């Protein structure tokens, strides 16, 4: 809560032309933003460029930020839209966020039961992390994004729902689908 107040205070100052205040905002959010964009693009340099673009977009529309909402949620909404624009330009077959992601819940559950794996037991934690990074880009963008927001950026399901404009239940289902896909990928590459 104090962080929220702090963010609002910094935004107010930045709006009055205080660049130091905006620098504080950048320093606070550069790491989570680069973590998110890095996992979404799969390229470190692109992630840095995109993070710069996102901060510039945020600065340009700073007066549209309303303090009752969390600044992090607002910023990641801009970042998410930036990614969508990027996919559109690259004409990547990104999953439409208005449609279910392939498997429906029930059919997925059946698959999951068949694929109940124990990948975690096969690898040490460090090796497992490396393997996860390698297979992360094999899952559809829409699912990967929700997975990253939840497990890398540690947003709550409610916050992700707010960022993506989706119902909380849908977010929970899709994060679960993403994890099951990752689990299968890990098993296939073992």
């Amino acid at each position, binding site marked *: 809560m104090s962080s929220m107040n702090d963010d609002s205070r910094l935004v107010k100052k930045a*709006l009055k*032309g205080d*660049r130091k205040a*905006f*620098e504080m905002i*950048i*320093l606070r959010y*550069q*790491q989570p933003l*680069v*973590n998110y964009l*890095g*996992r979404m693009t799969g390229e*470190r340099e692109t*992630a*840095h460029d995109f*993070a*710069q673009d996102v*901060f*510039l977009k945020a*600065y*340009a529309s*700073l007066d549209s930020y309303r303090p009752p909402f969390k600044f992090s949620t607002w910023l990641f909404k801009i970042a998410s839209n930036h990614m969508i624009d990027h996919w559109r330009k690259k004409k990547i077959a990104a999953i439409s966020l208005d449609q279910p992601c392939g498997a429906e*819940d029930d059919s997925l*559950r059946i698959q*999951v*039961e068949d694929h*109940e*794996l*124990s*990948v*975690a*037991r096969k690898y040490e*934690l460090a090796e*497992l*992390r490396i393997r*996860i*990074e390698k297979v992360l880009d094999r899952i559809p963008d829409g699912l990967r994004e929700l*997975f990253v927001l939840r*497990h*890398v950026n*540690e947003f709550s*399901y409610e916050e992700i729902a707010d960022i993506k404009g989706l119902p909380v239940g849908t977010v*929970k*289902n899709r994060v*679960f689908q993403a*994890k*099951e896909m*990752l*689990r299968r990928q890990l098993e296939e590459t073992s």
Partner: protein
Amino acid sequence: MSCLRPDRMDLYLEGELSEPERREFEEHLAVCPGCAGKLEDRRALDLAFSSLPPIDVPRDFAAAVLARLPDIPRPAFGWLPSVVTGTALLLAGLLGYHLITGESVVQVMLSVGRFILGIVSLAVPFVAKVFKVLQVFVKLAGDLGAALVKGLGVLSSLLSPEAIGAALLLGLAMSVLLVFGVRKIASLGE
């Protein structure tokens, strides 16, 4: 209860189950080694998912963003609307008063001026006196506090721990007696 669904296991690990659901879940875990093993696998994988290493952010990242920031365009005469509105309201008020009472506008302005001057001439000495009293009070309280701390320090160095305890008890007893005494006197007064 039948065996646990994988999506329920995920929600359990993330603390997203309700209290009754969690209890029922744990009751099943206690009697089903198969589900307990699968849950441990998921826990280990979740740990890996949530502990992916951060992506490096260049040291000069914030400076690079700041260098690209445009100036926020601010109106050169931002104060002008407030001044114009204030003046317009004042004129409207004077005109309204003139129309209602029939008094000349100059007369009304003189009366208002005299009224404001009267308030200021009363308020300034009063505020100055309050400020002076507060200053004296703060100085007195500071000196008293310092003397008290010093006295207690000297006392504690002279007395044994038992004697300090006894003195504290005596002080407490005297405070209680004082409170009861005051209450008694107050009730006699009634």
